[in-house]
């Protein structure tokens, strides 16, 4: 498609990419302005808003909450999801369809509804600690990712290898740990990355589940934006984008970026 062949196509695509990129680039620039409210173009240059963010207790404590929460929800989803997907891939077709639909069912319940249901049931009725409710909620959100991504890589796996291991003297759990797991390793890493970032970015569940001293970073950021308009929001945005870039680089180096598009 060289030269003038698809000029219109190229023009539209360039406009679309500008539309996608410009707002994010603009946020990044406003993080370095000296004025006390966000101005564009910026006057002066300072890194002060970044130091302000790192010095802010509410931002740092909610960053920690988000990290621990994403790790906990993802590990729980892997611990529950990987064995379930394995069992699904080895069972007969009629039960399999029904069960995998069941495991993917959280996808069809709007997250804001899940958040409300958990708030009402776990926090109001059961009086569970907020963090426990958060882990449960984020687990429900990321489980379908694990089921799908790990399921896809199990479909590629040739189970006759596992049979061979068994006939050579491995018992079932040994065969699973030594033969199956290493072969679906990349699927598990991809599932981990996708789950982690989706939990880390989640808003609807976290909006309902927060309490004194217990709020995720996106929720803290959201409340902050409602009352203030200073470049520290831009600075946090830059930090979040940097984390995203780092994650994408890791994925690109290990699995190829296309694995995130599935």
């Amino acid at each position, binding site marked *: 498609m060289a030269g003038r062949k698809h000029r219109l196509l190229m023009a539209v695509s360039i406009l679309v990419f500008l539309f996608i990129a410009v707002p994010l680039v603009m946020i990044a620039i406003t993080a370095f302005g000296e004025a006390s409210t966000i101005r564009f173009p910026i006057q002066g240059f300072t890194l002060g808003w970044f130091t302000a963010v790192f010095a802010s207790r509410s931002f740092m404590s909610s960053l920690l909450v988000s990290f621990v929460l994403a790790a906990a929800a993802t590990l729980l989803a892997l611990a529950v999801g990987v064995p379930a997907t394995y069992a699904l891939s080895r069972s007969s077709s009629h039960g399999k369809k029904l069960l995998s639909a069941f495991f993917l069912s959280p996808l069809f319940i709007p997250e804001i509804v899940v958040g409300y249901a958990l708030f009402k049931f776990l926090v109001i009725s059961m009086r569970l600690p907020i963090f426990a409710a958060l882990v449960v909620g984020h687990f429900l959100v990321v489980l379908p990712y694990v089921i799908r991504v790990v399921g896809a890589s199990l479909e590629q796996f040739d189970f006759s290898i596992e049979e061979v291991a068994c006939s050579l003297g491995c018992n079932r759990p040994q065969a699973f740990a030594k033969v199956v797991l290493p072969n679906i390793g990349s699927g598990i890493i991809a599932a981990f990355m996708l789950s982690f970032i989706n939990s880390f970015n989640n808003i609807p569940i976290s909006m309902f589940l927060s309490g004194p001293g217990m709020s995720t970073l996106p929720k803290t950021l959201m409340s902050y934006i409602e009352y203030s308009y200073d470049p520290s929001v831009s600075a946090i945005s830059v930090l979040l*984008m940097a984390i995203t870039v780092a994650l994408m680089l890791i994925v690109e180096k290990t699995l190829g970026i296309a694995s995130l598009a599935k």
Partner: protein
Amino acid sequence: MRKPLYALLVVPGVALLVVFLFYPLVAILSPTFYDTNGLSISRYLAFFGDPYYMKILARTLRIAAIATLVCAVLGLPTAYFISRQRRGVKSFLMALSIFPLLTNSVVRAFAWIILLGRNGVLNDTLLKLGWIDRPLPLLYTEFSILIGTIYLFLPLMIITLIGSMDNIEEDITEAAESLGASRVAAFVKIVLPLSLPGILVGSVLVFTGTITAYTTPNLLGGNKNMLLATLIYQRAMSLSDWTGAGIIALVMILMTLVVVLVMQRLAGALDRR
């Protein structure tokens, strides 16, 4: 020995979903089917008869429909463009499309606060150019929700479409062009029909995503332009109106399911063709 082992592996997941998803859902939904006289759908009749709620429902559907259409119209040529690039360029452009999807939606909505606000970039520029005398009310309108929503979901549409366009052989379109079809005709008659499954999936993702998204309408819509997602939050958290929130919850679930089922029907019909 083998059958029970497999069953054992599935049990924890099934149990967690039943206890923490389905039971809570039943618990919030069942009170909506009772009124003071017992079992009844009067609460739903009241909901659908209330012009205030109907305005919000209509606004939600309107924004979802327009956003889906715009995403499809902009996403199709872009995805086609990307799918026809050399490998290196292609993966770079794909990464550029995936990046916003992995970036927090608060950040992506905030960008439009900076752009559209009273003292935002757009108003600033227009004032300086002397095109307007006072700032235009762009933010906290239906328009700003729409822009924010398109911004949120366009990359998702593009990525979904690339998936289905990768399967179209370049030879086919080239053959059509060498046989005399114009480029536009080749696109409309070959690429478009072959990407229909992708368009369908992408549209469902954008539409259901829009009717359930919370961040964008909350940050860009303000109190006067609520959508269902911001309404359910207000009902539950500000007003403790549990049955009201339950009704909206069921309406949102049913809308999502209907859209997905219609899509599956359409996809099935496409397959048989």
